[in-house]
């Protein structure tokens, strides 16, 4: 029995794949080092992330998989739900051990599962691109906070860079406690931490920090939202299916009406 630990990074996980092949010792468990429980049985391998080894695994996958399948594997990493390391490992192993391409073989359970995860993560990414609402601050920064179900912030940055090339913006993931900041040239990831704040307060702006017109535009947006609706066609079920309640916290049009 071999239990592998790694540093939690994607490169670290790819290094685990490399080490397992080198040792021909197939993992019974893969866990981030800080979460791992010491095991009474078997051997624990503490893998140190090695960019060279990670890259060799990635290049090997690249030779055998399409861009979209590679993306699915990375999405599975960002999915973060329990067992994702194992899933990525099993998928990679099947790819390396099969003489022919395994892509699109939805009769194999974990290929189907990775495809379904891809869909889930992609949907959350798309929702964040849609539901982010920037608030303009007095110093001209457009700011938004999110707490997505999956770790999609790295996936949405490119979209916002292309769209808002001429304004400074920041998006903060309040549950994972890091954010992306665009300074008109580059985007950098930043950690912001104020332990005094509760999760609800974290990453929120107060009205004093607003640009002088911010409240006005939030109000205009609420007015627009109310008046574009056709009451004769009311369909609450369809409405809820499109914007489930857990997303309402982002949406200024779903907040109490401003006066």
């Amino acid at each position, binding site marked *: 029995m071999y239990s592998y630990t790694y540093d939690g990074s994607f490169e670290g996980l790819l290094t685990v794949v490399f080490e397992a092949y080198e040792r021909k010792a197939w993992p019974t468990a893969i866990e981030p080092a800080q979460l791992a429980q010491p095991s009474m049985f078997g051997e624990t391998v503490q893998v140190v992330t090695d960019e060279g080894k990670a890259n060799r695994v990635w290049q090997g996958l690249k030779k055998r998989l399409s861009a979209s399948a590679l993306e699915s594997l990375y999405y599975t990493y960002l999915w973060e739900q329990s067992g994702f390391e194992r899933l990525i490992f099993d998928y990679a192993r099947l790819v390396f051990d099969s003489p022919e391409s395994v892509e699109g073989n939805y009769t194999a359970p974990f290929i189907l599962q990775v495809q379904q995860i891809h869909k889930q993560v992609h949907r959350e990414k798309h929702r964040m691109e*849609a539901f982010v609402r920037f608030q303009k601050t007095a110093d001209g920064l457009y700011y938004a906070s999110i707490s997505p179900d999956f770790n999609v912030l790295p996936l949405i940055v490119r979209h916002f860079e*292309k769209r808002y090339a001429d304004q400074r913006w920041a998006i903060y993931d309040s549950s994972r406690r890091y954010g992306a900041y665009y300074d008109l040239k580059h985007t950098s990831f930043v950690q912001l931490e104020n332990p005094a704040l509760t999760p609800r307060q974290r990453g929120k702006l107060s009205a004093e920090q607003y640009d002088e017109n911010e409240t006005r535009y939030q109000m205009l947006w609420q*007015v*627009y939202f109310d008046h574009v609706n056709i009451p004769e066609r009311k369909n609450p079920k369809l409405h809820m299916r499109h914007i489930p309640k857990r997303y309402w916290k982002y949406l200024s049009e779903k907040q109490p009406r401003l006066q």
Partner: protein
Amino acid sequence: MNDKIIGKLKILADAAKYDVSCSSSGGKRKNENKGLGNAEGMGICHSYTEDGRCVSLLKILLTNFCIYDCAYCVTRKSNDVQRTAFTVQEVVDLTINFYRRNYIEGLFLSSGIFKNADYTMERLVRVAKKLRQEEKFNGYIHLKTIPGASDELIKEAGLYADRLSVNIELPSEQSLQSLAPEKNYSEILLPMDSIKNQLVQAKEESKLFKTTPKFVPAGQSTQLIVGATAESDRQILQLSDQLYKGYNLKRVYYSGYVPVSTDSRLSIISEPPIIRENRIYQADWLMRFYGFDVKEILDEANPNLDLDIDPKLGWALRNRHFFPVEINTADYEMILRVPGIGVKSAKKIISARRFAPLHFEHLRQMGVVLKRAKYFITCQTKSLQRQDFDSEQLRRRILFGEGSVRSALLTQQLDLFRQVG
């Protein structure tokens, strides 16, 4: 807050909302000038109204003053509503500020007709031009083409807009004459034809020259009102078919008529025909993505869509000789015709069966919905049903469940109750 913009926005959003198009996809405008916005690729719905429709664009009228008196229209001259107008700058400011906050993908600008067609069209073009040239805005712009506007103005509009549309509104010339006497079909079809020709021309030129100015990259669309007049679904879908084929339209939108007038020339209805609208959309999808010909969906004997079942199921029940379809060997085109199987499921089936013979269990795991499909397919010649049903029995089982003993008569009664309730 007391703000005259708020008052204008209320009136001019209210007046624009019956135009159902809110698509922001299909544009190819990239942010190459380090400006604001990007309209390449997929559309995004930034919110949804309580009636369940996508909010992608700031959809407003420039003004609701109008010289026409079309019976179906809330903005008609004789209607007693408050009138107002935005200035060009006000529309530009709203668009930019909403866009910067990620509320919208862009602007959908329509207008009542004040003075004359050219005067109105010129204003619309001015908004788009200002957004593109002064604000370096690369978001999505959809402009309405005002029937009767000059060719030059339409051409100029096409240089700034991602999509242009002319609404036909009424599905027959006869209805148009009775309800909108100031309009006529040729006046509507003329700009549509001109946009089509310029699209073709722009495409030809782009083959010859490296940089040709883009002309409405997301194409043109139109809207038909459903239920205000007596046309059958067959007439409506035949018209759509002609529009898709003859004018290369990207989309025909269908708007279930919301009673906004008590004019005696209109059908008397109490609620918008939402189910009928939905069935027409499904039929439209069958024509555009599922390889169906309009003649297969409706014919003289069946001029209207069945409201209880989707049109693909309706077709399958009338054409049982094509079924059952063997999932492991049938062509993609035929799998697409199985009720309940959509484009995504069909593609997954085609992909997976290269590796192993498929069972029903595989289909279930892949997320293929079998509720309707199971009556029309076999997996390795096996079927999920032990006996054969005729089409009427099948219809009942699908509608009411397998243990159903309800008779067709009861169904009819339920229909009556539904109409009354």
